[in-house]
């Protein structure tokens, strides 16, 4: 029975450079949006990996390119946006080079999406069951109705929804239920990677928790890798195995979740984590001064120079590359690169 896909749940191996359980490798991805005043560099030279059975958090403020990165991985960048360069290796296939036809076959089968606005992501005129059924049938061909229904009910139960949801229309569900329908749909074909684009952003904290737990269960029981996009740092701390921080279309830091929260290296990550609101104390809000530069004309040198408290002359001319500072902890900032260099350990790549 292929209704319950069961991967062996793999525990993340210690991150030491190249690993052999890479599911997705994004290399030098560039996505630009055309505007009359020139191209907006929404995603500029972003590279990262996703390992089997892990949740990779992708954080950053609004407009930093998180969602664009995710959409590019799905090859769903909407015009006027376009992928300008780079590779997206999924299970050995470069998605950037695929034809529409090959892409269509691969979508959802290997990579699926839990969309940002689950509220409006379900077709309002089709019943929930039919919307899950169409994706299964379009990819696997026609199937006996009864077995198919069993399978869909099983999916719904897996995300904690009752059977009656099968026959309901989206507007008859609550926000949390719709989001879980989207999760059930995302795992229907047992993909190797799910992109969850702010899956909890429109939900209240209690429902957020339920959805978060559902995501964790999906990861643990099915061994599916997840890219979790969001700006809720608390949620990231709870769910993610590793976290990647984006700023103005660039990846500035990527590290396992504990070191990232305990000892954030990049000044932007530090500000981001300091600015997490606390219910215990009122902190002055950080990150208020300075604006992000115009994304059409990125400055030479470090992209964070205008807002960085530690900016030096060198930051204004040379751009720091993402480099390993500790094993598995990469950061794009000269503060650490020099320390690493002077410490004698040559930075890997």
């Amino acid at each position, binding site marked *: 029975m292929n209704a319950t896909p069961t991967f062996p749940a793999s525990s993340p191996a210690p991150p030491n450079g190249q690993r052999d359980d890479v599911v997705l490798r994004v290399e030098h991805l560039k996505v630009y949006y055309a505007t009359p005043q020139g191209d907006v560099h929404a995603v500029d030279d972003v590279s990262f990996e996703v390992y089997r059975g892990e949740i990779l958090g992708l954080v950053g403020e609004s407009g930093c390119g998180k969602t664009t990165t995710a959409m590019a991985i799905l090859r769903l960048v909407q015009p006027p946006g376009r992928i300008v360069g780079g590779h997206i290796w999924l299970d050995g296939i470069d998605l950037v080079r695929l034809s529409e036809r090959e892409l*269509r076959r691969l*979508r959802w089968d290997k990579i*699926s999406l839990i969309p940002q606005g689950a509220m*409006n*992501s*379900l077709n309002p005129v089709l019943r929930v069951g039919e919307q899950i059924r*169409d994706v299964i049938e*379009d990819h696997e061909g026609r199937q006996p109705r009864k077995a198919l229904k069993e399978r869909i009910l099983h999916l719904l139960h897996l995300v904690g929804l009752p059977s009656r949801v099968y026959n309901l229309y989206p507007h008859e569900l609550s926000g949390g239920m719709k989001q879980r329908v989207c999760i059930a749909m995302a795992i229907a074909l047992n993909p190797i990677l799910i992109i969850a684009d702010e899956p909890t952003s429109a939900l209240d904290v209690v429902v957020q928790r339920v959805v978060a737990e559902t995501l964790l269960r999906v990861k643990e029981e099915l061994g599916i890798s997840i890219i979790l996009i969001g700006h809720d740092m608390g949620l990231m701390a709870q769910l993610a195995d590793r976290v990647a921080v984006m700023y103005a279309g660039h990846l500035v830091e990527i590290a396992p979740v504990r070191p990232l929260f305990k000892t954030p290296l990049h000044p932007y990550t530090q500000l981001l984590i300091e600015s997490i609101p606390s219910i215990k104390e009122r902190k002055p809000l950080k990150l208020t001064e300075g604006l992000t530069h115009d994304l059409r004309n990125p400055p030479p040198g470090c992209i964070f120079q205008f807002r960085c408290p530690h900016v030096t002359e060198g930051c204004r001319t040379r751009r720091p590359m993402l480099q390993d500072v500790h094993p598995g902890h990469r950061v794009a900032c000269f503060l650490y690169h020099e320390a690493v260099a002077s410490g004698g350990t040559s930075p890997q790549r």
Partner: protein
Amino acid sequence: MRGLTWDYLIRRVAMFFVTIWLGATLIFIIPRLAPGDPVAAMVSRLQAQAGYIENSAEMIEAWRRRFGLDGPIWLQYLKYMRSVLTLDLGYSLAYFPSRVEEMIVDALPWTVGLLTLATLMSFVLGNLIGALMAWRRTPGLIRNLLPLTLTFTSIPFFMLGILLIYLFAFTLDWFPPSGAYARGVEIGLNWEFIKSVIHHGTLPALSIVLTSMGFWALGMRGMMITNEGEDYMILAEAKGLNPFRVFWKYGIRTAVLPQVTALALSLGSIAGGSTLVEYIFAYPGMGYLLYQGIVNTDYTLIQGIVFMLILGTATSVLILDLLLPLIDPRITYERG
């Protein structure tokens, strides 16, 4: 929670009758607000034809009684309402011994047949063209050719009608220029007759379809473009669904809903006929009848036709209200 409830049905049907009552009352009031006396006008017209008429004052009085124009206004109103309820539309003023309801019964099938077919054809074609114009995957060639089909929209349909008659009736002689069926054909369900009706109906239908198609196409195009940006369309794409399934079930299926409402309204107004088209093609339908009524200041005939129009619109809105929840599940029979 879903499903047709008695409460809903009763409320809608009550609404239907209120609409008809209001419409009928308006038909009663408006001619009486207009200056002039139709009976006096008719008698003076007869006088002009026949010279002097004896006892014209008594004659006017008698005719007033005949047409229910005597007595105080409230009594007229009550009588009028009674005749409306019994669908007794009275005598035609211009074709006196003929009764209005008989004239309507003769004309209605022609109009309903012609216009229903033309409207449905225009709806289907127009929406398909509009949807294809908006669809991202429409091949470039087709996408560029489609707007050409809409150029007729800017031509008034009666102009197109004249053009069609000139081209296909007089020059090419493919279709007859007027009438609803050939003379000498036995009316009934026989092949000869049906063939003749289709033959005669083609040009009028074509002039309506070609000119009204653009209305549907542009509406549909707008709806589809709005639709393309919706989250569920992006998700449908991400799901790697068959493009045609996305087109039909995610695109057209959700975009067509407002169009269906508009269709019901235009089907409802069919009962009034398409005056100009029917006039140009001398098609014996409601529009032609209305034209004759207006030319002859035949108040009872005009009232009767307008009443049929109100009845038709109200009925199709009622049917639409009962059917919409089946098309759009977000609309329920519940209050609110």
